[in-house]
């Protein structure tokens, strides 16, 4: 269990190393009810959109970023995740997700931790960046 008192400004969260597979993206599109084939699942359709190959849906990347934070702080701790999709994320390529604590404060009776979060590629690509707000309990 992570407590507010355990967290300090500048603390690093992660990294989480992962990758998205064709099968994983296809299943994600199905539950999302996004009709396939599409630019997330099909090489030719991706090329028509000037992409080198099928990409990972932005909201799937966002879900993986949320996982880093809930793995660290616990389920139901993540209050706000705000991300910007900077570059297309390819399938079957190493993805690294990491975050840094940028502020800790008490606000409206809640212990708030703010962090910057980034999803990057093996060549330093900055795929998705954002900010998150996490609420944590105090030590008993």
């Amino acid at each position, binding site marked *: 269990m992570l407590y507010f008192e355990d967290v300090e400004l500048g603390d690093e969260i992660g990294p989480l190393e992962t990758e998205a597979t064709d099968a994983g993206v296809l299943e994600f599109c199905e539950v999302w009810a996004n009709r396939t084939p599409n630019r997330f699942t099909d090489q030719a359709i991706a090329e028509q959109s000037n992409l080198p190959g099928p990409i990972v849906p932005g909201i799937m990347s966002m879900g993986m970023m949320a996982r880093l934070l809930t*793995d660290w702080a616990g389920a139901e701790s993540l209050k*706000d995740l705000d*991300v910007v999709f900077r570059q297309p994320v390819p399938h079957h390529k190493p993805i690294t997700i990491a975050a840094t604590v940028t502020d800790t404060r008490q606000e409206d009776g809640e212990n708030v931790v703010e962090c910057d979060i980034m999803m990057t590629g093996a060549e330093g690509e900055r795929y998705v960046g954002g900010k998150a707000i996490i609420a944590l309990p105090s030590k008993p």
Partner: protein
Amino acid sequence: MATELDYDRSLHGIEHEAGPFEVTESQIQAFSRGIAETNPIYTDAAAAKSQGFQNIVAPPTFCTIMVHRVELPDINLKFGGKPTGGGMHAGQRVQSRAPIMAGDKLTASSHLKDVYPKTGRTGTMVFIVWETTFRNQDGMVVADVQESFIRRG
């Protein structure tokens, strides 16, 4: 001086309602597999119940898959008098307000939140931001989701 944007301003203040959308255990499990979630409250009903939840819990950004089921109108943005094409997904924000669980029936209420221009190295872009509030069957707000799209002239 700020550029005067040409789009359908009558859309401001209109709420577009959709749903109810039933949240199922299999949807939550498939979403969790997609993001390689390992926390058992997001993958297993018994584990979620043992931690005090009524049912398997949806991961915090689960609502993002429900947003595009809301039919939103074209804002008829014109750039230099010319209509613009499809938008690129620029960003997304999820503010979680309460747990979402299997068996919930969610309704969505969406409105046009903001339309603004930004000028960068590659020219002027217009950001279009929609905000959707999800409520459960008890009328409780469970999440607010913002989606932004970029259009270029």
